[in-house]
Each structure stands twice: as C-alpha cells, then as structure tokens.
C-alpha cells in the first residue's frame, strides 16, 4: 500500500507545483477513495474462487442506504431507519484487454428471489462506470448518472431458475435501458462458511460505450439485500470510488479535480455551513438532518449526501446546478388537485415536483438557482457541513 501511495504521489508532486491543501487532499484521496488494482499478463479471472484473487490487494468500500428519493413501499420505509452501514471488499485485476472487479460483502441472510412468491426479493449487486470521464469531465450523479453524464451499469441479481445478469445504459432515475455488451460476464457465489457473497464483474476495458484505459477510473457500487425487501432504489449505495490503473497515465488535472476538498473537514466549518444552508434557504426545498419543513419530494433528500457524494460534485451542484440535473422519480406521483381535471377526469401532474424545466430550445435547466455568488469560504463551510450528513436514521 505504502509503495503504491509513494509512487502515485511522486508522479504527481514531481510534475506539478501544488498548494499545501491540494497536496493534503490528494494524500487523503489516495488513502480513502482510490482502489488499488493488479495488472496481470495472463487472463483476467471471472470466477470468484479463482486463486489469483488471494494475491490481489483490496480495499473496503462503504455503502449507504439510498434515501435521496423516497419510494412508496410501506414495508421498506419502515426498515430504512434500522439499517446498518454496508461494507464491501473490492479488488481489481486487469490486463491489456479486460478488467475484473471483485466485490465481497457479508450477508447473514442470503436470499434468492423464489420461483413462486409475490413479495420476496433476491440479493443483488451492481457496479457502474461513467461513459465519459477524465480531464475536464465533471462527475456524474452517483445514482445511475444524469442526462449530461450517462453511465453503464452492470447488474447481477439472484433470481431462482434464471441468470439475472444485465447491462444497462442509464441517465438517471427511470432511464435504465437494457443493452447487449460483448465480453461481459458476471458471476456471483455465496460462501456459506464465511457468510459472504462474492461477485466478479468482468468486461473489456474498452467497449462501445466506455473506455476505461485511464490512470484513474471512477466506479460506483450498489448492493441489494433481498431479505430487507431491497430492489431498485431501495439499496445501499457507495460514492464514486476511483480505480488506479497503473498501466495508464494519471491525469494530474483530473486528480486535482476529483480530490478537491477531500480534507474539507479541516478547511470548512460545518457549524457555520449549516447556518449558511438555512440562511440561503436550502431547507425550503431540500430535507436534511433536522430540517424537514420542505415538502417531501420537492428536491433530493440530502440526509445521507455526505456518504454518497464527493466535495467536487457538491461544489459543482451548488455553483452550477444545471451540470447535474437529477430527475425526480415518476412525476405522476404528485398530481395537482387544485386545477380542473381534463375530460377523462385526470388531474395534471403538479409541476412543483419536477426538479427541472425544459427551455424552449430543449435544454434541461435545474430548478435550483446557482449559488455561485457565495464566497470560497462560504462554499467550503457548506460543503464541510454537507459532508457530515450521513444520517439516514432520521429518514422521514
């Protein structure tokens, strides 16, 4: 590990003169956010039990219950406040052609969606890669991308009698579209002795949708616990993690961008940040922590945003909300009862709950105004505060 850090840092530091904070950010970023990988001359294993995996260094990734949007299953919503943080061990192996991502997590209640029931669910796991990333590219929304940042999603679910292995392209909630991608293989096995699931996602480094041949590859993780009725948006979700592929050059600008603010807790004042969120009226639309006055679904719930979002993503979202436009779940969930229904008796959707507007030229514009006028320190304080929000237990 230390060697990896040293070489990585050496490469960066020697080529650029960085400020002290940026250096600290990068150091912390490598420690917490970067996943190591192993290059092999041989074939990349797709079997979870392959011996090679025991020789590959891994790192733990934390996954948070997804509560940015609320789904309407009463049984699940009761469970969410009782959930625990999910932890998965991730390993990566690649050669010049393929990459395999190994994900191992504890599950004392392995469940397979049975052949004949109405309300039981299977365990599942998925990973996602942005279709475009690198220098000059901002991070996609972690929840399956957004219209400006499509992602490719690889999913394995345990469904009795079927191989529920799927590849999707996604641009945010509700847009998941199944595609065929050559050379993809996903395997998932349960180890009864250690009570752990292991899944291996293998894909070519370059597909028609994305090219992972880069020094730093963003990757996101999601895990579903069938025993807790998890499926779809009810899941545990990581923030973007970054795979270091040493065979490819590390872009220092991109590294500086994604690592920005990794030490924000030292630079910003969360207490002042919270005051600023209230002064600037964030709580008029968003719900977070003890701020629950905004109408539900008016805007994404931020109660666990600190767990699933990075500082640069948060900064981008505050300064330039149009960059990452997140679509509310099905807009039909709220209709407007205070206007006249049409001749079939249908009420139109309540526009208050759509999170963006379409300009006449067809562009999407977030309903959230830009807060670019805030000072650098104000932004840091707010982001420092947002990074402390990991409190799904108060989900309402």
């Amino acid at each position: 590990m230390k060697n990896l850090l040293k070489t990585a840092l050496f490469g960066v530091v020697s080529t650029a003169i960085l400020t002290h904070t940026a250096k600290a950010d990068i150091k912390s970023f490598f420690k917490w956010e970067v996943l190591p990988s192993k290059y092999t001359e041989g074939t990349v294993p797709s079997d979870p039990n392959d011996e090679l995996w025991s020789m590959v260094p891994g790192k733990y990734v934390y996954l948070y219950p997804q509560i940015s949007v609320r789904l309407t299953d009463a049984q699940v919503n009761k469970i969410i406040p009782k959930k625990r943080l999910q932890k998965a061990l991730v390993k990566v192996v690649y050669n010049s052609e393929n990459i395999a991502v190994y994900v191992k997590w504890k599950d004392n209640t392995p469940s397979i969606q049975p052949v004949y029931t109405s309300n039981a669910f299977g365990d599942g796991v998925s990973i996602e890669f942005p279709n475009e990333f690198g220098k000059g590219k901002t991070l996609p929304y972690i929840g399956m991308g957004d219209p400006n940042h499509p992602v490719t999603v690889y999913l394995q679910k345990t469904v009795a009698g079927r191989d529920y292995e799927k590849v999707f392209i996604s641009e945010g909630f509700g847009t998941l579209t199944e595609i065929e991608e050559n050379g993809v293989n996903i395997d998932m096995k349960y180890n009864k002795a250690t009570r752990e699931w292991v899944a291996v996602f293998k894909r070519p480094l370059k597909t028609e949708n994305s090219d992972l041949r880069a020094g730093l590859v963003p990757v996101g993780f999601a895990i579903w616990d069938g025993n807790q009725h998890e499926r779809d948006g009810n899941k545990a979700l990581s923030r973007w993690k970054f795979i270091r592929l040493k065979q490819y050059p590390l872009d220092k600008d991109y590294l500086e961008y994604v690592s920005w603010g990794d030490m924000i807790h030292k630079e910003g004042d969360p207490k002042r940040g919270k005051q600023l969120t209230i002064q600037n009226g964030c709580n008029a639309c968003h719900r977070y922590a003890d701020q629950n006055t905004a109408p539900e679904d008016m805007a994404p719930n931020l109660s666990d945003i600190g767990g699933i979002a990075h500082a640069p993503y948060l900064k981008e979202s505050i300064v330039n909300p149009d960059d990452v436009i997140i679509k509310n779940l099905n807009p039909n969930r709220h209709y407007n009862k205070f206007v006249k229904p049409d001749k079939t008796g249908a009420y139109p959707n309540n526009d208050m709950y759509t999170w963006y507007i379409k300009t006449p030229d067809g562009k999407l514009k977030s309903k959230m105004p830009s807060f670019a006028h805030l000072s650098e320190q104000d932004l840091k304080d707010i982001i420092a505060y947002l990074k402390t929000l990991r409190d799904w237990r108060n989900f309402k």
Partner: protein
Amino acid sequence: MSKRQLAMVMDLNKCIGCQTCTVACKTQWTNRNGREYMYWNNVETMPGEGYPRGWMEAGGGFDEQGNLKDGIIPDMVLDYGVPWDYNHEELFEMDYLKPDTDPVWGPNWDEDVGAGDYPNSYYFYLPRICNHCSNPGCLAACPREAIFKREQDGIVLVDLDRCQGYRYCIAGCPYKKIYFNPKLSKSEKCIFCFPRIERGLPPACAHQCVGRIRWVGFLDDEEGQVYKLVHKYKVALPLRPDFGTQPNVYYVPPVLSPPKFDDEGKLIEGGETGRVPVEFLEKLFGPGVHHAIKVLKEEMEKRKRGEESELMDILIAYNHADMFRLDENYYQNLAAEQGLKGTEFFKIIDHRYVAGANTPKEEVKVYFEK
C-alpha cells in the same frame, strides 16, 4: 392523460356471484405462465376481506393533496392464496376431499359470509377488474415509468420491456389489481381485453356475463349507455373514489336488498337500502350514492306505474349491441391512419406490449456452493 376513456359499468343489483366472468378471464389470460394465482377479474362478497385479503386497507392511491401514498405488497400465501388442487384420485379409495396444500386464504375464501346478525344478515357481490384509472396509482408508483395509459382509449398497460419487477406498482394501486408474475419477474394486470376491444368486441368478462350486468363504452360517447348511466343519470359510481385515482369502472349500487326484521320478526318497511346499511354503500361508492338510490327508486316507481323510463330500459339490458358500444369504426380508422393492413392491425398501438422480447434465458445458475 388520454384523449378518450373506455369505461365499464356493472349493475350490482343483478350480480349473482356465479363467477362466469372470473372463469372467462382466467381461461383467456391467467391460467398459465406464472399468472395462475392472479385473478384479473374476481367477484368478492361485500362486506368482506375481498381479494387479495384486506385490499382496501393495503395502502396506495393518492391523498387529498394528490400525493401518492405508501402501500404494501400482499403475500402470495396469506393474502392471495396459492392455487391448489384436490385429491380427486384418492377419493376412489374412501378418502375425503381435501386440498393438496394447507391453504390459509384464497380468492372468495369468505364467500357469502357478509355481515349483520340473523335474521338481518346481508351481503352482495362485487365483481372487480382493473379500474383503468385516469390517475393510476400503479403508473405513478413505477420508478421505471414502465406503465402507460393508451392515448386512444385510456387502457392502462405494462410495458414489459421496461418493467424490472420492482413491484412498487402493487404498493401504489389501492385496488391491488396489478400482480407480480414470479415466472417472468414482471408485473401484469387486466388489459381490458384490448385485442378484443380493437376488433369491436367487449372484454371477455363483460361478454360472458350471464346476468348481463356489464356495459362497456367510451365515456365521451353521449349516445352510449355507459355515458347515460354515469353522466346523464349519475346512477353508476366509481369504487372507493376517496382513493383518488379517478377509476373508470362504475357500479350501480345495490338498492334492492331485502328489508329488515324487528325483534319480533316483523318486517320493517322503509329505509333507503333495506338491510345493506347506506353508510357502507357510501364508504364504497362515495356521497353520490344517495342521489343514485333516489333516481333508481324514482325510475323504478315510474316503470311500475307503466310509464316510460329510459334508465330502466338500459338497466334491463335488452341487447348486447347497445350495451357494448365500442367500435363505431374508431379503431379501424386509427389503423387506417397509420396505414396498417390485415393482421398488422394488431400493431396498431400496442407495439410496446406485444413486442415483448421478454422470454427469459432458461439457463439455471448455481448461487450456493455445494
């Protein structure tokens, strides 16, 4: 949301609970392929738990502000009831008739139980299909936007290519009339027999009804009997309008239940609806029930006096052609506009539903090590 809306009216005064509609639907659509447990059409006894058990208390629908409410997904064994068979073979060996599983609930489990104490016990039958609502709860709940309402006639269908089997639709539907197909791992529901409708035939449940209690037609067809029952006479009312989904199946409330007896066994004359408490009818069909009862009684009296009554003539249901006013070349014109000929007619609007490509890979994966 749609340009036109198809609707069905059912006269509960005439339903005898024979389940012919249920069987017509089952043999046509749900006796195979993971749908065995589903009843897109069922007839339940009211008051009662219904099918699935306790559907009225299972959540879904919209609150007064128009926001979708949380709901639950009924359990296969406890709420729907698993399909079971009987030991017909063993009967020859002097056994007694018993199911081959140990069921705890099933469709029509509480048939004819009803409510009230002897001699004033009461019940009536309530046939239910999907309401093809104007603001469907299932459509609103789907995070995949896999459920759509047809522009042409307001029929609500599942796009099986988009459906991923998350089942929020089941939680979102307050009538619990959308079902999970465990074999396909997708949701399925009553399709208002759209392939029949497009050919000018009513849905199988309506066509087969021996009591001729069902009318089918477009709500904006002022010549149609559906329009007259719903909008002109206002005697056909939606089920649980308080669920807020604007359902499009309408019921003529049961006003002809027998009168009550007093403690000494004498008939009590009067009362709006005989033994069935009007409060219960109001709960099911909303405040419009009082007006409907009044109009029905007045028109019945008129007819008894030998006067003309258009409403009574409609409810007598003289002929199918008038009861099912569907076609009027509506779909044929739509198909012609799209330049479809012959069997292409089938593609008219439902390529999303018919295209399918949903056949699952039959490869079996081993998840647990031996």
